[in-house]
């Protein structure tokens, strides 16, 4: 049985505001960036990254657009550039930025504003 419709491209999800379907087109666009983020699973890579983030990213072949967005901590821009949250969360925590701060930025809110929208903000 063939499902009547399932998303095969971002276009199919564009009527869901604020949603970026991580499909093959976005994955291709973010491939080098996501690969660099995954390398940060290793503690020695995290240490090397923190010495000079820009040099580390250049050495890994990360594009200027992605590097700029990292320097601005612009997670929404990174998402639009094909960054996948599960990958770039490794970069974020290396930089001392947690999931909820990443989310608040993507929503265009401060961390405190975002936490006020949650029912039990102490459960972190």
């Amino acid at each position, binding site marked *: 049985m063939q499902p009547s419709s*399932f998303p095969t491209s971002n276009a199919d999800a564009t009527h869901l505001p*604020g949603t970026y379907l991580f499909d093959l087109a976005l994955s291709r666009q973010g491939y080098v960036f996501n690969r660099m983020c995954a390398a*940060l699973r290793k503690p020695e890579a995290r240490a090397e990254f923190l010495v000079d983030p820009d040099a580390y990213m250049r050495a890994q072949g990360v594009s200027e657009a992605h590097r700029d967005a990292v320097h601005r901590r612009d997670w929404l821009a990174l998402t639009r550039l094909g960054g*996948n949250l599960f990958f770039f969360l490794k970069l974020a925590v290396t930089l001392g930025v947690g999931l909820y701060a990443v*989310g608040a930025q*993507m929503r265009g809110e401060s961390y405190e504003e975002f936490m006020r929208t*949650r029912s039990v903000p102490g459960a972190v």
Partner: protein
Amino acid sequence: MARLVAGIGSSHVPSIGRAHDQGKQDTPEWAPLFDGFAPVKRWLAEEVQADVVIVVYNDHGTEFLLDRYPTFALGVADSYAVADEGYGPRPLPQFKGDPAFSAHLAQSLLTQEFDMTLCQEMALDHGFLTAMPLLWDAAPAWPVAVVPLFVNVVQHPLPTAQRCFKLGQALRRAIDSYPEDLRVVVLGTGGLSHQLNGERFGHLNPSWDRWWLDTISHDPQTLAALTHLELIRDAGAEGCEVIMWLVMRGAMGAQVRELHRTYYAPMTTGMALLTLEEIASRD
């Protein structure tokens, strides 16, 4: 003969693992969640006494990278490491596998035309880890062997919900045809509603979550017919993970009894635990 003795669905939120490791089980913020797992943990230890758990999970950019991304993958190793997800590995013992059972599952699934990627090495991230110490005592060593079953719910195109359900049915035939006396639990992980990407970060849908929990026991076909777009719309982009619960449900017979349910949605994810047991033999 191997026997399926329970089906469990559980969320796999990283904050649960952090709260566990920091000993926050009894805090007002976390007690509603951990108290919900406690009776199931007792039941598993005292009554179920499983030998092997097949854990249906997804990786989060930890072990499976995008250079080659399987749709379905099965662990066939004799042990599995605890992964470092960027902030050091969690203080949990490594897992022992059951390579003979894994090899049988692989053979049977391939014969049934489910062409799994077979893995001799898999470090396990929170997709696999979160529920484990809440359901079995980790120290000094896990009392159960494990078989990790990976599903792509990260990079579209994903397998359909229906395909996941059918994989569960095939998995059941594989379990039933194993000659050794093994008590097997299938644990489906992920969800429930949550979205972690874009401006819609934080989307939660407790009423949808309730509907999912109410429906999976008696009408899994309605859930298996859902499209990814419907799941994303209602449960959020990452809520699509619930298709992994359908592998668990597909492995169980038509008639199941709900033994236990917990639901708690404090922050960004509908956290659920659902425990099912078969009533009658499969039709």
